[in-house]
């Protein structure tokens, strides 16, 4: 399984309605505030994100909402896959563990369930489930790239 597999599987996701995309975008501040609150309260946070990475984590949460706002409004599977891969590479190389994405995505789903209307939640949920299911593959592909980069710098 590779990047092409991810793109093909992402192609099965459905474009959400404009109403849902607007609702998600309009609620971005509360969504970001809640994810920060939940993640910061975790006693195992350092094991998830590494040392001195709290600001980077908060940036990621704000960027996550901006990115999802864009992608659900103008869905393009290749952009979704390339961006998530970039995030995995950049954040893993800075000390974030794979478990961070598992914890984060679980928390996002809980937050969306609480703060979005039922219709918006049901339309957006498949995107989050797709990311959840594919964490191992994103981790593997980003590890391959990181290893490749490391060997390039050794030669």
């Amino acid at each position, binding site marked *: 399984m590779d990047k092409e597999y991810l793109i093909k599987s992402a192609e099965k996701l459905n474009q959400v309605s404009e109403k849902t995309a607007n609702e998600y975008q309009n609620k971005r501040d509360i969504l970001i505030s809640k994810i920060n609150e939940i993640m910061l309260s975790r006693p195992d946070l350092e094991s998830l994100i590494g040392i001195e990475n709290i600001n980077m984590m908060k940036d990621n949460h704000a960027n996550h909402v901006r990115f999802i706002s864009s992608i659900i409004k*103008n869905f393009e599977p290749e952009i979704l896959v390339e*961006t998530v891969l970039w995030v995995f590479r950049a954040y893993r190389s800075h000390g974030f563990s794979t478990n961070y994405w598992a914890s984060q995505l679980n928390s996002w789903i809980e937050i969306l369930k609480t703060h979005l209307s039922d219709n918006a939640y049901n339309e957006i949920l498949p995107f989050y489930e797709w990311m959840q299911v594919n964490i191992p593959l994103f981790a593997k592909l980003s590890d391959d790239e990181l290893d490749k*980069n490391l060997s390039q710098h050794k030669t």
Partner: protein
Amino acid sequence: MDNHPKVEEISEEFVNYLLTGRKKESSAIIFQFLNQNNSFLELYEKLIKKSLYKIGELWEYNKITVAAEHLASAIIETILNELYPKIAKTEKQNKKILLACVENEFHQIGIKIISDIFELNGWNSFFLGANTPTNELIRFAKSINPDIIGLSMSIYFHLPVLENMLLKIKDEFPEIPIIIGGQAFRYGGLEILAKFNNVFYFADSYEIYNSIKNLNL
């Protein structure tokens, strides 16, 4: 036989100087590159753009800090300003372009280069820089009546902001062509631009340079 070092070697040395804050040496490399009969376009695309991408990659792989990345950007901007007298001496036409980054976008070197390419072609460039609020851009545009507006976006998730900007600008200036560029469009996003009349995407400096004559209004 060409004894000049390859651009890859020059780029590697340039990146090393940038990341260690060696402004004078970085500047010397640029001027030497131009003195070896390389054009400004080659400088922008082959040396500056590639070096910036390399620096971005080094951050991505945790080889350098954000501080080093900012230092490198600051030095490049200083060098672009040093080059400005060489660009601005071109005989001027009576054409104006207004350039800016979309709101929340802080990567301004690319659009600064586009500003300089228009200057090289005799246009008067009004470069507003990073993170330009739409209302301020519109207010300024009303004061200078540009022939073209140029916008840059490096990060994909600013796409809704760009769309909103285009709606507002087109509402005020339906006839003025708008040109768009930036790394954000590497994997897509162009269908948003297709919704608007007279909005054009350019992938790099060469495309812009070759199209400027057709943009003469």
